[in-house]
């Protein structure tokens, strides 16, 4: 019985690790963020995959999310955010802040 429980526990643990935090995608194109408004679940840690489709580097930055991350041109990178209280969290591209603006909405 204990052996069986152990196996069950191991499977549960492995599933949790494999599943990980839910993933959301953000794309940078022509110095704009797509989507410009990203809805994520509140009170949950989220894996944000940022794909930079521009040839130039960009820095994903947000004072509200406490995040700052460079994504080289034509590459992708991962930023973990949250768990967030419900609300809006603006972010911007520090290299092209005039156009690269967006916000995370936690619901």
């Amino acid at each position, binding site marked *: 019985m204990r052996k069986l429980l152990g196996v069950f526990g191991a499977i549960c643990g492995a599933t949790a690790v494999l599943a990980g935090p839910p993933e959301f995608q953000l794309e940078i194109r022509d110095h704009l963020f797509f989507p410009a408004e990203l809805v994520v679940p509140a009170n949950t*840690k989220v894996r944000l995959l940022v794909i930079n489709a521009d040839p130039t*580097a960009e*820095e994903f930055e947000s*004072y509200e999310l*406490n995040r700052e991350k*460079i994504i*080289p*041109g034509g590459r992708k*990178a991962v930023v973990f955010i949250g768990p967030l209280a419900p609300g809006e969290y603006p972010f911007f591209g520090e290299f092209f802040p005039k156009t690269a603006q967006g916000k995370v909405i936690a619901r």
Partner: protein
Amino acid sequence: MLLTTVVLVLREMLEAALIVSVLLGWSVLHGRSRRWIGVALVTGIAGAAVYAVNAAAVSEWFDYVGMEVVNAAMQFAVCTALLVLAARPAARAATWPMLVAVSLAVVREGFEILLYLSGFVADRGAWSTVALGSALGAGIGISAGALLFYLVVGLRRVRALRVAELLIALFAGNMAAQGVLLLIQADWIPGGVQVWNTAGLLAEDSVLGQLLYALIGYEATPSIWQVTAYAGVFCLLFVFFLRRPTRADGNGSGP
């Protein structure tokens, strides 16, 4: 684009200029040669170029959080170098920990500026604006560093040493907290609870907020682990610095 460039270059320059001027002041106060600073700057700029060239590859390490891990490692190395500097009164004027701290600080800040500038290589029309912005940002940053240097070395020696010690301890605490934040961002360590929220009182994106961020690592919404790392390293350095050199150390500010 001009303003964006000035702000970006200045932000990166301020943090590096702070540690450069404080450690340069420190070696002058200890009567050491300033020659190490040239070696540190050249090493740092070369390192920044190597990092910028390999940024794309590094970025994809460790399941796309490579930059966080590498940058955190650099922050902790700066922190360790400053702890080594403070740990033994006899070794307070050793140049190699200062060389390590300054060159890594320059790698970190310089790499970001180089990646930003690399975006304009193909855009000839933007060159003059970006060059002017960089020159302005760098000029203001270097001036701020020079001002701090002369403020520190201009004080009476004992007071100057205390001020430099305080600034070094604050800087090391800031590096530890930034390193921890990077590991939280990479999901290598848990986020922990938010200790305070002073965004309403002093926004991080305000001019004062930015300045305090560069000087002492001000955060409007820090995690418990950032605060712990900051306070821990700051206190440790503070305690180390309290141990005054004795005459037996042969390096004292003795009679």
